[in-house]
């Protein structure tokens, strides 16, 4: 009975979430902030690995990241909506909807063409955003401080409260995604990755798989953008720039498409490398990031997730 409980995904996830929430009380504030940002980036990465499971990699997730961020920001400044949870949820839905609308256009393409078309979308958005002065042009704008159920936390706890909200919402989304990955449609997506022609000849649509996965990725990316904007308290067109999209691709390649927690670990690694090198080597953080990227691709080509999988498979066998 108890062993069954330990193997239960829901139980494991709630345990991990509680652990992280408690840890958040003990670690310094800057680390809480870094982890929150890592969750934001991880959400976008989670979207890309959902696409990767169906054989696609988007090089333009800055597009949905930006839409999510601006949605949360504009709702905050224009509509006076400041509840962080509501903003995250609405950004998720709205960006998912945008994704659903453009997905049929993108879903016809594969490989480098899919990557480039998604990149083009993000750059068109970038070009538009820096030209709209009403929303700050290339400077962007500041978001109002967040509230939670109508309460505004004191400034020393604001980061921690957002951190808790981010962990809980992301945790449940991750559980749902894991269920999707292991479901029949999730397996069919993996099959599309391997041999699209055969999937069509078995009677399933690779196009539909791509549309669904892109929509999910858009929603996740939008939520990540909103979380990033709320955490920073600021949003600007840089969210949609191609270099930002490159970081998302890096997170998902470093994580691999096998494991959900690996994505957040990869995102955390990226954030840590970024903030450490930003602090100690402010002029060369890109160099360090680049070298870190190259080395991790050389030494862990199939991603951190493959380590996780091997580890758990071995654990199961030893039992």
């Amino acid at each position, binding site marked *: 009975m108890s062993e069954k409980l330990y193997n239960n995904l829901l139980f494991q996830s709630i345990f991990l979430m509680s652990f992280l929430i408690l840890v958040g009380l003990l670690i310094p504030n800057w680390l809480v902030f870094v982890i929150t940002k890592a969750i934001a980036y991880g959400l976008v990465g989670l979207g890309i690995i959902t696409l990767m499971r169906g054989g696609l990699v988007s090089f333009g997730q800055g597009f949905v990241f930006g839409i999510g961020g601006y949605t949360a920001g504009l709702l905050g400044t224009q509509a006076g909506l400041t509840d962080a949870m509501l903003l995250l949820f609405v950004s998720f839905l709205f960006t998912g909807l945008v994704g659903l609308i453009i997905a049929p256009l993108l879903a016809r393409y594969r490989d480098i063409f899919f990557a480039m078309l998604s990149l083009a979308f993000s750059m068109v958005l970038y*070009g538009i955003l820096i030209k709209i002065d009403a929303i700050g042009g290339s400077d962007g704008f500041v978001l109002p401080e967040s509230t939670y159920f109508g309460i505004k936390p004191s400034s020393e706890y604001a980061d921690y409260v957002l951190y808790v909200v981010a962990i809980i919402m992301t945790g449940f989304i991750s559980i749902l995604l894991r269920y999707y990955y292991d479901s029949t449609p999730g397996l069919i997506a993996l099959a599309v990755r391997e041999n699209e022609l055969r999937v069509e000849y078995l009677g399933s649509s690779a196009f539909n798989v791509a549309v669904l996965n892109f929509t999910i990725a858009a929603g996740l990316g939008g939520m990540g953008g909103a979380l990033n904007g709320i955490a920073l308290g600021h949003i600007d067109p840089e969210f949609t720039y191609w270099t930002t999209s490159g970081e998302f691709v890096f997170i998902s390649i470093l994580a691999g498409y096998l494991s959900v927690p690996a994505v957040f670990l990869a995102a955390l690694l990226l954030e840590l490398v970024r903030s450490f090198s930003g602090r100690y080597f402010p002029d060369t953080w890109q160099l360090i990031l680049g070298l870190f990227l190259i080395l991790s691709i050389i030494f862990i080509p199939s991603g951190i997730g493959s380590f996780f999988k091997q580890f758990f498979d071995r654990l199961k066998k030893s039992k």
Partner: protein
Amino acid sequence: MVDEILTIVLDGAIYASWLFIVALGLTFVFGVLKILNIAHGGIYALGAYSTATLVPIFYSLGMPEQLVILAMLVSALAVAIVITPIMERGILRRFYGQDEVLIVLVTYAIYLVLEDVQKLIWGMNSLYVSEPRELLGALEFGSLYYVGYDLALIGLAIFCGLFLWFVLNKTQSGKIVLAVIHNPEISGCMGVNINKVYLAAFFIGAFLAALAGSFTAPLISVQVGISVAVVIESFAVVIIGGLGSIPGAVIGALIIGMARAACVHKLPEAEIFIMYFCMAGMLIFKPKGLFQGAQARKI
């Protein structure tokens, strides 16, 4: 009216020439090595920086002014000679045959490294080398005024394109490269040294990027961040023209150059995103670009 059209056409052609030289290297490297090289923009910036360094040295040595072009060529060559073994031999070779998108990510990492390498070597200050631009005087027709150097760029672009086309189609080594593009495995079996072909192709690509940087240096202030826009602009060109196609790069560069020049004069707000717009439009209607045939899929 006529003047305005002529201005747009000439501005567009000058812009297109510069863009073509960058994109030519990018598309050629993709054609041979199947690598869409983000770091291409970084090599471009290195070309500009090395010219900005070498040309003042050249003048201080009291060399004849007219030979400054030679100094610019040498600086581009130097960049290609240094960067090719490091990038192609040192890093990219490990990833041949792997997923295209993964290799794009690797080149993105190299791009990041090159960004900071520029800062480390040349610092944060802007460099100026406008002297070569005065070399060819100016041309005036009617109300239009053009610097000769700018117009000469059009000639340089045409020369680069024709030269590469000629080498590929009319020489023995060019035909070997074409064979490798067509089928690297079989070419390898027939005794072609694939590694050498890849190295040479990468060198040519890097040289073209650096060359574009060298010859642009007199037109701009050479500073941190000049490569970031080049990456996307040259991507847009090769996407429009079709990955790996030289005629495609010509057309792609012309489309973007003209569209951009038209925007500058007629609709300045759209200047930034017109090329992304062209790229997205082309991908939607003709995803493989103008000059790439459909690939047969076999059961």
